[in-house]
């Protein structure tokens, strides 16, 4: 598992960590039950405060991505797959909404948009 932190980014470090871990989980690179580094070990490896890593893990736990067990560590949480799928569907829906709005503003009709989408589907 790789976590790369930028000191010069405007995004707070704890957010960079939680985003990257979420990404790894959503992409399937981290599986249900995988053990995450300890908050102290991660702080040492990234050379940051343990308060920061704890904050990142607290957020991930609040959002249901990981579970922390006292004395044992933090694990990637189980019921992820359904949650993940729903979140991804929601993101796609939001993007499609934007596309629909912009297309209408531009005066495109449905068939024109569909044609564009068809080409893109083949390219991706």
């Amino acid at each position, binding site marked *: 598992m790789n976590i790369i932190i930028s000191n010069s980014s405007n995004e707070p470090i704890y957010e960079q960590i939680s985003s990257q871990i979420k990404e790894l989980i959503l992409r399937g690179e981290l599986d249900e039950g995988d053990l995450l580094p300890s908050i102290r070990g991660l702080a040492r490896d990234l050379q940051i405060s343990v*308060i*920061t890593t704890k904050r990142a893990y607290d957020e991930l736990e609040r959002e249901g991505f990981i579970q922390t067990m006292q004395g044992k560590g933090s694990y990637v949480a189980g019921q992820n797959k359904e949650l993940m799928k729903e979140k991804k569907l929601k993101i796609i829906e939001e993007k499609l909404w934007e596309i629909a709005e912009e297309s209408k503003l531009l005066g495109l009709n449905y068939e024109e948009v569909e044609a564009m989408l068809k080409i893109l589907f083949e390219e991706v």
Partner: protein
Amino acid sequence: MNYSLEIKNLRKEFKGFTLKDLNIKLEPGFIMGFIGPNGAGKTTTIKLIMNLIKKDGGQIKVFGKDHVAAEKEIKDRIGFVYDENYYYEDLSIRQMKNIVSKFYSKWDDNQFNSYINEFDLNPKAKIKTLSKGMKMKFSLAIALSHQADLIIMDEPTSGLDPVFRRGILDILYNIIQDENKSIFFSTHITTDLEKIADYITFINDGEILFSEAKDKILDSYRIVKGSTKMLEGNRDKFIGLRETDVGFEGLTNNINQIESSFNNDVLIEKASLEDIMVYSIRGE
């Protein structure tokens, strides 16, 4: 909750200088950096904790116990690195170690030897032949070799090169993997603290300006840069300002106010600990 270190309303009076209303709390498992300009009271505070000088008021507890009543017991568990080190100059490192190690119930000779090796020190070298940096390394080796639960250090890395300082940071990070250990150290080298510190206490002129989580501090302050004419009517929004012929630079801890007053007409950047320290002290 048993704090590793708990200071309440600490007070010490000297002619011409008073340390007052000092309140500091450090939980086990964390690192607190103690910053402030020369003469602010950092060394005095540390001397008071270690009972090297007597306090005039307030309370100091280490591991939940009074620092005077339980002094011996506490000091067995403290790794202390002090700026001036009082060693017998004619003794060798090994001889000096043999004397000092007797004071500690959990002395670990193997650990000491491994640090001496890592720090490239010759155990047979006489103390008087050591450079300032080497003496500091020797002090560190002693402080880290008796399973101390609290490490207190006064400017432990002054006189040490950046390569070695990074090495010390690595050692401190390893110590703090044990969530029962804590570290309290004063330093001028704010860049070291920007990495490793969990909490920062800032002292100036005998009083504490803030004692907070490092991330919170760095999140609250910003450096603002813009043209001088924008300052009209806005000077009070800054803690410190630097005006030149080509514009101004100021420190603020009121980010929202700045953003609404100036919109996008100014450059807003993160403030370093050094920025915060310098502007807070220099003021306007």
